[in-house]
């Protein structure tokens, strides 16, 4: 059974992502929403710094939250995919638990 994690704040402003990475496990999904989308720039380094293996995690970002803040979808790192709200619902269905870090 896997978990959908949502994170809504930037790691430079909050320890949410750090805590999320501590308890996320292979097969889980981390969905960046609201101000959490700024983490597309810091996620890889933060995970490496904490010794967290990102390769087993699905990393997503909510498209409208990303573009609203001036970040481009085509500039996303390869391991992060953008989803819309339909995709958000699909992720919630696909994962048994959801943990919302806010």
């Amino acid at each position: 059974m896997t978990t959908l994690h949502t994170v809504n704040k930037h790691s430079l402003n909050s320890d949410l992502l750090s805590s999320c990475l501590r308890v996320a496990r292979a097969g889980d999904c981390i969905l960046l929403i609201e101000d959490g989308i700024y983490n597309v720039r810091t996620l890889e380094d933060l995970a490496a710094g904490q010794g967290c293996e990102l390769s087993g995690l699905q990393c997503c970002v909510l498209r409208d939250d990303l573009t609203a803040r001036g970040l481009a979808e085509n500039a996303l790192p390869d391991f992060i995919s953008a989803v819309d709200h339909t995709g958000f619902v699909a992720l919630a269905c696909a994962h048994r638990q959801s943990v919302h870090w806010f």
Partner: protein
Amino acid sequence: MKFTIVLYAAPYSSQASLSALRFAQAALEQGHEIVRVFFFYDGVHNTSAFSVPAQDEYDLVRAWNALILEHEIDAVSCVSSALKRGVLDARESVRYERSGSNLLESAVLSGLGQLVDASLKSDRVLSFGA
């Protein structure tokens, strides 16, 4: 799937209310069921009919109201959160001798037991906060 949505944040003070609303809309569009929307903590402000956004601002409270009515969603505002934040229905307004009531007609005041109940009846519980 059966969803319960919990909203802890007030409209406009953060993006949480909009995020929750858009999730709810998408879930319903895909044919899922929303068992309950539980407004808790500052989230009760989303059920105050007295909200008057600026003319060029998205009316979140009316949007929630419309969604709740259109899909006959069970919308509950936590009574203890609501009372201390000044969101009252007619009965509480009379009981506490306040000069008016503002709870959206589409919502009811009730206790945390309704959140526990919704958690038992739902496949997924989504939370949005600030």
